[in-house]
């Protein structure tokens, strides 16, 4: 936190390491070795501990640290890394991820070379040297691509859908995926794989057998492109957002999946009308937006919803919360409207 406007958004975005860990810790039974001081692992463990409790998850991921101390900083930590990978492999995980930190990058340890020594288990190096490697989003993308790169050739004909890039630190992460699953169900298909959310390493082979890759948000387009070039799998750039956006999503997904989407679009449209009539008591309320950011998609989202509910925008109106992240699908809108009703009538 500084009080002066900052020149770059990424400066405040969080650590590359955290971004990558938000992905690698979602591979079941994997060990992630963090090459750096124990504090880097502890900071992140604390974050995942809090997130696990928020999401009623009872187990913590395995984060091992090379526990670099002052001596390691002076003389190098490659020996400690080798030992840590050996110890991690002895735990018999399906995969070991190795993530670097700012300080090991600064002292010049060759993390990649140690990872390439020829281990009995897959050892996947993800360069995440804290701020030296970018910011949270870079780590997140790099980890996704590194994991996707480990998938082999598809073992079966394409079947379902793969969700790409769940934001595992979001409080609503599973609610979002549930809503996407419900909408895909209207098209008669299912989610085969969440890349990466509570994923078994062996299920990675399903990646190539997807009929549609659905990206969590448009930022992930490079990952979508990469998967398209490798497996020829088409992708949609984001989870559905907004009333019209949700219907458009059904139409596009249906076309890609070779399913006539008309019936699903009609049913969802009717469900949306029913939803809006359930909140007709909000009509005419004078509101203003509170918190969040009206830039980009948020502005069009709230404008559409305000028009559909006949809300009056007024700088002196009742403050209602702007959603962050934007709610997914129709179910997300319903939950948001309950919060708006509480704000307006509460």
């Amino acid at each position, binding site marked *: *936190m*500084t*009080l*002066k406007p*900052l020149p*770059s958004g*990424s*400066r*405040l*975005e*969080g*650590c*590359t*390491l*955290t971004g990558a860990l938000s992905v690698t810790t979602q591979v079941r039974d994997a*060990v992630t070795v963090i090459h*750096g*001081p*124990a*504090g*880097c*692992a*502890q*900071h992140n*463990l*604390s*974050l995942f*501990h*809090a997130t*696990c*409790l*928020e999401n009623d998850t*009872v187990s*913590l991921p*395995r*984060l*091992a*640290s090379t*526990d670099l*101390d*002052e001596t*390691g*900083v002076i003389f190098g930590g490659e020996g400690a890394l080798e*030992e*840590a990978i050996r*110890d*991690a492999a*002895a*735990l018999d995980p399906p995969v070991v991820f190795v993530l670097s*930190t*700012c*300080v090991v990058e*600064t*002292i010049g340890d060759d993390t990649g070379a140690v990872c390439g020594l020829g281990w009995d288990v897959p050892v996947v190096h993800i360069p995440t040297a*804290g*701020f*030296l*490697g*970018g*910011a949270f989003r870079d780590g997140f993308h790099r980890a996704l691509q590194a994991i996707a790169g480990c998938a082999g050739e598809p073992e079966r004909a394409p079947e379902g859908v793969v969700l790409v890039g769940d934001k595992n630190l979001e409080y609503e992460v599973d609610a979002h995926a549930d809503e996407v699953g419900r909408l895909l169900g209207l098209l008669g298909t299912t989610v085969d794989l969440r890349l990466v959310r509570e994923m078994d390493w062996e299920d990675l082979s399903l990646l190539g057998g997807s009929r549609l890759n659905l990206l969590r948000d448009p930022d992930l387009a490079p990952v979508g492109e990469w998967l398209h070039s490798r497996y020829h799998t088409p992708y949609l750039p984001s989870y559905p957002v907004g009333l019209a956006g949700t219907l458009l999503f059904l139409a596009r997904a249906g076309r890609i999946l070779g399913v006539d989407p008309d019936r699903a679009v009609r049913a969802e449209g009717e469900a949306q009308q029913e939803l809006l009539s359930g909140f007709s008591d909000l009509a005419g309320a004078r509101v203003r937006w509170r918190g969040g950011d009206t830039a980009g998609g948020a502005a069009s989202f709230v404008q559409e919803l305000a028009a559909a509910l006949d809300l009056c925008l007024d700088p002196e109106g009742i403050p209602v919360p702007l959603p962050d992240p934007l709610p997914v699908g129709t179910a997300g809108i319903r939950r948001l409207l309950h919060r708006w009703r509480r704000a307006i009538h509460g």
Partner: protein
Amino acid sequence: MGDCVNPVWPCAMAGAVSCLSGIEDLAVVIHGSSGCYYYPATLMPGELFGTFLQEPEVIFGGGERLAEVLSSIPPRYRKVAVVTTCVTAVTGEDPAESGYGGDLLVVDSPGFCGGMEEGYRIAMEALAPAVDPETPGVNLDGIHPADPFSRGNQREAERLLALAGVSPATVFSTTRYELLRKAAPVSLSVNPDLAGGAGRRIGSLLGLRDVGASFQALAKACPGSDPDPVLREVERAEDRIIHAADKYLRRYDPPSVALFGMSAPAMYAAEMLATYLDCGIAAIGSRNDPGPSRFPTAKMTSLEEIRVVLDREQPDLILGSSYERMVHPQSAFVGITLPLRGKIQLRARPLAGIEGALDLMEQVLNACMDRERRRG
């Protein structure tokens, strides 16, 4: 590798920030990446500043960026402390050369130099507190914002001092900067594991017996103080604890207990449980280097080590952090150390002092009874 899988104890940088951030007119700047900033920011209730360094600033020098952040610090802060992180410590930049015109305190406490208590010590040394022989009253030490019991401990210590007719002097480390050098000649601690500020430490407020002994020592050190009201309250509190513990023991066996936390608070809790509830102490896992103990005690800072101990001992009751609660949910649980996630705590709960002892035993007995009822 058990000794460093899922490390649970914060690094020296976080410890230094915790020590410094309690000083209300001292701005604390974390000189490093956003990753280093966000963890302490979740732990400390107050305002923290950060340089949020990016790659070019590491390669070409972060002085300019530091100067930019320093120039944005509001004038309500009388002084600024810059805490180095691993990378800025390695690159060897001297924050004092940033060109900042104001008074700068540099605290060189990178994460790789140790655990939280080490950073706390380094920060306290940098603050260089001093005694003013003319300052009346008693200092309190061991109070820092990252501790979930800090507000409760401070209030309880101040209440006890008031009972004894003594005014609190400097509180290390929740005070104003100028008071750091106007410390009273004597101090009481609510956590002897943390480096004291200034003044001769005459006792600890962890546990009823220590409270009694400390206030007797205080009577000698501070003529005019009256320990009797505190000693009488200690006696009454002990009676209440004995009564409640006896009632529990009429129906249930004493629980076997594993304790985790900083050495001094964990050992205090173990003594309370062994003394009043005749508990078997299966293990004490100390987050820092432990002092001498009559109980099986070892330093444990990895959740894997802790898990092994809990799986082996299968304690009925765990005193520790929400990490221990998470890995062994079948045991009754009472929180005595950070982090205490997943549970709302709004009131100022003490661990030290008389009310701290009563609260501890109340929590323990209720947790154990709830567990017994669940088991039917």
